[in-house]
């Protein structure tokens, strides 16, 4: 107990004693956490937008002209029982004709003297099934029903969407990993300056019989505190920025940024982690 309290006090005093290099470490962590925080929200909202676009993805099922009304009714029942389907709309040939007129501005009966438009269903899949693999599988199942003439959906739309989603996701993850590494390295270097300025403590401690753990712990506590403080500062700045955007700038950018308290906890954990790993790496060099 005595020793834990002592080591914690040492770490805290070290933070106060280190002045410039301590402030520098905090500064670096603040900047990194800010970039990561803003980057996270930007990436999250971009992916959210992509998801919104995906939400407008529909599958059209065209029924054979020869199908009777009873067949269509029982087929509709079958569709409603499929758990992949979020909701469905039946479009009769008459409704299709109206839609055709609305879309192309021409009455189908002016061109042909009968209605060639088949009855159809437009279905919307649940979110988790709105991907290429699931859509293809579901389309195949539906296609296998003898009443179905054709299942149509925008395959290319899905392919492109998924490609971009992957690109965004992987580049974001890559940038995050690289940024985290860079910040840990910078933090570690700046903590090394702190330690360098207080090498006398390390050599003295070792001379009087301190274990490496005892020598190391105050510096690691100091680094972790710096990480936590850096993260808190970054959180405050990010919070302030979001607050200003949501309250005063709504009229310029019609966009509300919403983050939960978990986002800030995440930033805090990340900053603390950077300080911890950074200082552990820094002190290693001084303990042989």
């Amino acid at each position, binding site marked *: 107990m*005595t020793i834990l309290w002592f080591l914690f006090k040492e770490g805290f005093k070290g933070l106060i004693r280190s002045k410039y290099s301590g402030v520098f470490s905090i500064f670096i962590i603040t900047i990194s956490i800010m970039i990561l925080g803003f980057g996270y929200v930007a990436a999250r909202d971009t992916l959210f937008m992509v998801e919104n676009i995906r939400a407008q993805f529909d599958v059209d099922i065209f029924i054979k002209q020869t199908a009777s009304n009873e067949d269509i009714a029982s087929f509709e029942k079958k569709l409603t029982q499929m758990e992949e389907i979020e909701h469905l709309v039946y479009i009769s040939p008459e409704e299709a004709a109206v839609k055709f007129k609305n879309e192309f501005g021409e009455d189908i009966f002016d061109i042909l003297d009968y209605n060639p438009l088949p009855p159809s269903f437009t279905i919307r899949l649940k979110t988790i099934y709105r991907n290429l693999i699931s859509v293809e599988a579901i389309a195949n199942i539906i296609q296998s029903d003898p009443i179905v003439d054709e299942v149509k959906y925008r395959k290319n739309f899905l392919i492109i969407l998924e490609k971009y989603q992957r690109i965004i996701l992987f580049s974001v993850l890559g940038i995050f990993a690289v940024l985290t590494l860079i910040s840990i390295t910078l933090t570690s270097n700046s903590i090394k300056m702190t330690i360098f300025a207080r090498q*006398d403590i390390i050599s*003295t*401690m070792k*001379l*009087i*019989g*301190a*274990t490496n753990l*005892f020598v190391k712990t105050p510096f690691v506590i100091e680094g972790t505190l710096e990480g936590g403080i850096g993260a808190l500062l970054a959180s405050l700045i990010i919070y302030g920025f979001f607050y200003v955007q949501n309250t005063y700038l709504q009229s310029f950018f019609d966009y509300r940024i919403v983050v939960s308290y978990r986002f800030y906890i995440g930033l805090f954990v990340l900053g603390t982690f950077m300080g911890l790993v950074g200082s552990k790496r820094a002190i290693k060099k001084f303990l042989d």
Partner: protein
Amino acid sequence: MISFINVKCTFHKNAGVKNLNFSIDDGEFVFLTGPSGAGKSTLLRLIYMDLFPEKGKVLVRDFDSASIKDREIPFLRRKVGMIFQDYQLLKDRNVYQNVALALYASHYRTREIKSRVYSILNQVGLGHRVHHKPLELSGGEQQRVAIARALVKEPIVLLADEPTGNLDPRVSLELINLLNKINKKGTAVIVATHNYSLIPRVPGARLIQMNEGEVTSIT
């Protein structure tokens, strides 16, 4: 308690120590003398295992330089007190904190730390300077803080490398008297010095003379 068995430890260009064979017993007072570069500091560093022999071995109680593990070295250092010509005190901590540090590092409890630190500071005559920083003290006082720090964990031996190097003759004498007093209480003391005038001040002390890395005479 301390044995050197055929010890050789050299740096590049063959400077260092070699053919060291001797033992020091509990409670002895030993002067280690010889010209500059004779190997006195090297010998002391071998005792607190800051250096390791390339040949032979050094034994300190149960610690064997040939088999000691890195993580056991702190435990050896808690049995061996050290003081240096430049004192090696932490300038941003006061006298109390400098001495207490040794006990914190040896995992003592707070209450015990307090009583031990005050008692040792009184013994070295610094009871009234507890809250001063090292740079507010004279050289002799700083050296006594270093002694207090070395003694507070009750080592079996106190190593002093040129402890009077920066002190005037009168203060040097006081210091030797203090070391003598400590020795009388049972702690072995090894003083490396080229200040030969100190030797007669400790009647009955052993004398190890060195030159060019070897022991030339031993009493």
